Structure formats: C-alpha cells, structure tokens
C-alpha cells in the first residue's frame, strides 16, 4: 500500500477543515466504523466482550477525556480514578433513584455530574501548574474515594459498601445486570465511544480546542493574546471530566456490574489512564484509542502467549509482563516521544515520500 495524498485538493475551507481531509483516510475510517457496528456484534462472545472490547472502549472514552485535559490543555491530572468513581456512583444513584428513566440518560447525567465535580477540583489549576498540579489532583483522587467509601448514602447503605448495577434495558434489551448479551453491552459502549470521539474531535478543532492548546503551549502568551485562562482551563476540566464520568458510569454499570470504590477506582486507575494517553499520544484522539488498545491488549496478549502457548508458570509470565510493558514504554518513548499517534504520522510522512528516503 502506498500512501497518496496528492490529488486531494480542497476548494473550500470546510473541506480543508475536515477530520479526515484525505479521501483514503476517510474511507478507512468508514470501513472501521462499518466493521465495528455491523460485523463485530455478530462475531462477539463473552470473552471478547468482557476481557477485551468493553474495557478497550470504556478506557478509550476515559483516555479521550484525559487527553482533552492533559494532551490538549496541558493540565496533568492524576485524579481520573476519582472522577470515574464519581461517574460510577452518580450513575448508581440515578439508576436506583429513577429506575423508570432509560439508563442511557443516567450515563449522560452521570457525566454531567462528574463535569461539575471536575470543575470544582479544577479550580486550583488556576494557580498551580505542572507536576505540582498533577500531585494536587491526587487530592481529588484520595478524597473522592474516601468519600464514597465513607458515606453510606452513596452506596445505598448496603452492608458491604459495594454498589452493584441493577438490570436495565435499552429498547427492551438488557445492557446491565447479570443476564446481558455480549453484543448488546458492546454496542451500547460502542455508541458512547464513537460519539465521544466525534464530539471530542469537534471540540478540539474549533474555538475551544485552540484556546486549550494555546494554554497548553504557553499559558502567559495565550492570556495576552486574549484567551481567558479561567474559562479555558475550567472548560477543559469540565469536558474532560464529563467523558471520564461517562466512562466511569459504563465501567461500573455495563462492564463490571459491581464495584468497590477503593479497589476499582483507586490511584492505579488514574495512572493507567494517564499511561494510555501518553503512550497513545498527547493531543491526539486517535492516540487515545491506540493507547487504550495497547494497555488493554498487550497484557492479555502476553499472557496468552506466555501461559497458554508457551506453558510457563503464571507468576513468571506476570513478572515478565511487567518487564516487557515497562521496557516497551521506554522503547516507544525513545523511538517517538510523542506517542503511537506520532509514530503513525511519521510513518505516513515516510510513506508519502516513498520511494525516496527524504
């Protein structure tokens, strides 16, 4: 396959501003969507859904959210786990309080509530910058987890402090609870994921996106040329938290079904999503997908390879898995500090020059 973008001229600014200005890319994008919506649901089974695709889609939403904040607006956050927990608990409370409302709206509302909480914890970002901010967001992480653990109202006074998702349906098809079909949960998450990606893409290519990136690249200069840092940062926190909240809600309601806050939404989750964003590529929607895929699939792939195919003891495989994931992260960063998305871009650039080396 030789990559060509010659011949793709645009006669309008609308055309030039498209997400996939190159026809070839556009077709590929439609093809991926078609497969995801029309083919995968017929092939999917529980294993693929629960072990790979659901976590991939849900993490991708979280990664998109964090990427808006960190990749586009430059505010490093380690509170993602806490915000996912807000989404999950908000969704739980809504699901149990208004069982007649469609879960679809619960998830969206949960995102909205998380956005509010995100703004609250985003306020310090006006003063605090860089790694100081990153560490400061841990306050959100620990405080929120403590809160959900501590206040019984949040888990409806259940004895164990866990929350579990009751059965809910969309168009009469169950998407939460124990008796769901793999394809239904998959499609439900896919819709959210695709819509999130499209919205994120739209937001980042327009006014808002540019003001975020300006703040990211040089906040003082951005302010002097007319970006209101308060609004830019807080809107980034709000929108980022919205996506993160949605992913938290899906993570709880659709994927896991039952959640204990400290374990599922602990600090590890915050780091995991941040890794996805950085490995995938800061400031790239595609990167969010690549990063999520990498960190969801790689451990499973290594496990399958080591345990199922090579027959090694599980613990040795698990240790090697750490070694390999760590090694790969470093290797990728050395090869291309700007993530998988950039690696892809450079590859395309090379292809474009092909067969000449420069």
């Amino acid at each position, binding site marked *: 396959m030789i990559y060509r973008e010659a011949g793709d001229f645009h006669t309008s600014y609308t055309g030039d501003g498209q997400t996939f200005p190159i026809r070839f890319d556009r077709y590929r994008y439609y093809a991926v969507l078609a497969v995801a919506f029309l083919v995968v649901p017929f092939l999917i089974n529980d294993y693929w859904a629960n072990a790979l695709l659901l976590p991939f889609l849900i993490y991708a939403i979280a990664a998109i959210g964090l990427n808006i904040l*960190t990749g586009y607006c430059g505010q*490093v956050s380690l509170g993602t786990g806490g915000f996912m927990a807000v989404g999950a608990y908000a969704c739980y409370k809504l699901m149990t309080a208004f069982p007649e409302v469609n879960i679809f709206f619960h998830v969206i509302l949960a995102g909205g509530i998380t956005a509010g909480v995100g703004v609250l914890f985003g306020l*310090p970002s006006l*003063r*605090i*910058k*860089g*790694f*100081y901010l*990153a*560490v*400061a967001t*841990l*306050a959100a*992480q*620990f*405080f929120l*987890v*403590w809160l959900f*653990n*501590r206040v019984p109202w949040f888990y409806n006074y259940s004895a164990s402090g866990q929350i579990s998702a009751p059965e809910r349906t969309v168009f009469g098809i169950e998407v939460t609870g124990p008796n769901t079909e793999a394809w239904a949960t998959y499609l439900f998450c896919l819709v959210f994921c695709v819509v999130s990606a499209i919205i994120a893409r739209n937001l980042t290519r327009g006014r808002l996106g540019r003001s975020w990136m300006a703040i990211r690249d040089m906040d*003082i*200069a951005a302010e*002097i040329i007319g970006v209101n840092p308060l609004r830019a940062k807080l809107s980034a926190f709000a929108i980022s938290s919205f996506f993160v909240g949605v992913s938290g809600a899906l993570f709880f309601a659709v994927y896991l079904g039952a959640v204990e806050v400290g374990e599922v939404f602990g*600090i590890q989750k915050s*780091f995991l999503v941040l*890794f996805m964003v*950085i*490995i995938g590529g*800061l400031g790239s929607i595609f990167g969010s997908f690549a990063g999520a895929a990498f960190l969801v699939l790689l451990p499973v792939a290594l496990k399958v390879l080591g345990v199922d195919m090579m027959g*090694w*003891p599980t*613990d*040795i495989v698990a*240790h*090697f*898995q*750490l*070694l*390999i*994931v*760590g*090694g*790969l*992260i*470093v290797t990728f*960063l*050395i090869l291309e*500090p*700007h993530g998988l998305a950039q690696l892809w871009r450079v590859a395309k650039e090379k292809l474009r020059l092909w067969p000449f080396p420069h």
Partner: protein
Amino acid sequence: MPDQLLFAIEVTINGLMAGVLYALVALGFVLIFKASGIFNYAQGVMALFAAATLVGIMDGQVPFSHLINAIFGTDLHHFGWHLNAVVAILLTTGVMILLAWLVQRLVMRHLVNQEPIILFMATIGLAYFLEGLSDLMWGSEIKTLDVGIPQGINETIDQITFEAFGYGFFIDNLDIIATVIAALLVLALMAFSQYTREGRALRAVADDHQAALSVGISLNFIWVLVWSLAGFVALVAGIMWGAKSGVQFSLSLIALKALPVLMLGGFTSIPGAIVGGLIIGVGEKLFEFLLGPMLGGATENWFAYVLALLFLVFRPQGLFGERIIERV
C-alpha cells in the same frame, strides 16, 4: 484536660517522627527533580528494589532462582551464606550505582531535551520494569529485613516523661534512628548541592538540558551521579520502611506518602522535603486525632494531599521550591 493535652503532644511528636520517614522517601524525588527536572515515579519501586536486594544479598539468596529452577528444573535457592549487614549495604549501594548507570545508558541519554511529561512517562516504564525485575530476581514473598535497628518504645524517654508529667511518652526507637539518619542525609546533600560545582551543575541541567550540554556539563555523568544518590536514598528509605513493615511489594507504595510532602516543601528543595515531611506528619496525625473520629477515620491519605493543595494555592511552588518563572 491536661491529659488530653499531653496526648496531643505525644501525637504531635509521633507525627514529626512519621514525617521524617516520609521525608526520607521525598528526598529521593527531590534529588532527581532538582538535577534533571524529572519527576521520578520509580522512586518508590527503587526503594523496594534496593531493600529486596539488600535482603537477598544478606541472606545469600540466588537471584532469579525461581526462573532458573523453572527453566532448568534445578532446585537452587540459597548460596548458603549470611552476610554482615554493613557489607551487604555496601554491596547493595554498588548495585544501585550499577542501576543508575544502566538507567542513564539505556533510558535517559536517549531522552535528552524532551518535555518533562515524557521523561515522567519514561520513569513509569522504568517503575514497571523494576517491579518485574525485583519480583523475578528476589521473589515476591515477604522478606524480613533485620539490619539490627531496634524497634519499639524508647524506655528512657518513657521513664523521664513519666516522672516529669505523669504520662510516659511513646516514641519509637526506629523513628529516633530514622530522624538521625535523615538529618545526616539532608545535611550532607545540602552541602553537596550548595558547595560543589556539581551541585550547581545539577540545577543547570534541570533548567535546560541543551544549554547544560553546550557549556560542557556531561549530562551522562550528572545523571549517573544523581540516580546513584537517589538510589542510595531509596536504599535508606527501603531499610527504614522495610524494618517497619517487611520487604514486599507494598513498599513501593510509600511513594504516595512522599508526594504531598514534596508538594508542600517544593520539588526542588532538600530542606523542603524535611520541613514538608514534618508538617504533613504532624498535620495528618493531629487531624486524625482531632477530627478523625467525627469523620469516620482513615482521613490520613487524603488529608495530606488536601493540606498540600490548600497550601499550594497560596504558594504555587511550595514552601522552599524555586519560584516558577513567568515571563514573556
């Protein structure tokens, strides 16, 4: 109620002591941040790795024995020696220097002049790697670390205070020793960064890799140097915490205790690590003591962060951190 007051004092003193232990971990972060602007996420895992290596060397454990046995069907476990603690500490220090050299060689030198977040990410990769390595080398069971540090209530203080106030204060011997060690470390490191040309070079590197290169500062050397120092600090932290709770995976999580200390004291300040540690230690203990029962306890984790956060709102670079330069 004076009894209440005495107890509050006891809590405060113990908070100070706990703070010193946090500061020990925070110091490692500060060193590397100061010298290269890198937020070294792997510091906690380095403490684990150092402590595990120390125990392994002391007990004469065969490294990678599990792996070797699995592959070759052998039954290796121990070399059958027991090394003196001091010798083992020296050897472990050597291992940490080797590690520093490898980190420089394989990771850092390829990432010169990258943005801080990329370097941060690389240290995360490193943390994963070291975690796997540590498990693979020394196994993941709990190991007892005994280098002869006494633990438990200090009788003398107990007695003296009992006679004075009618209430014997509880102070842990381990904490006293940790305080002394931390004080020595901080003094030594401060002297190093203030009075040596390497100290100045460290700060230069943190500001601008390229410019540092251009004036002839060898980044490679500086990095081996600070990573070795940080490795040594990690070893010390690993020994203190390992003596407290055994050497095992959770040791790597002590990093989380060090982060608020770091924010409060400032990422670049060695004395800041100590002062921050003390404030956090006392703050969280007193808060738990005074308000914990009302809030249902277990407030320590978040309190430290919230305290540091509130503080930063007024002083965004922490207590002693370098002013964040904002200019156009």
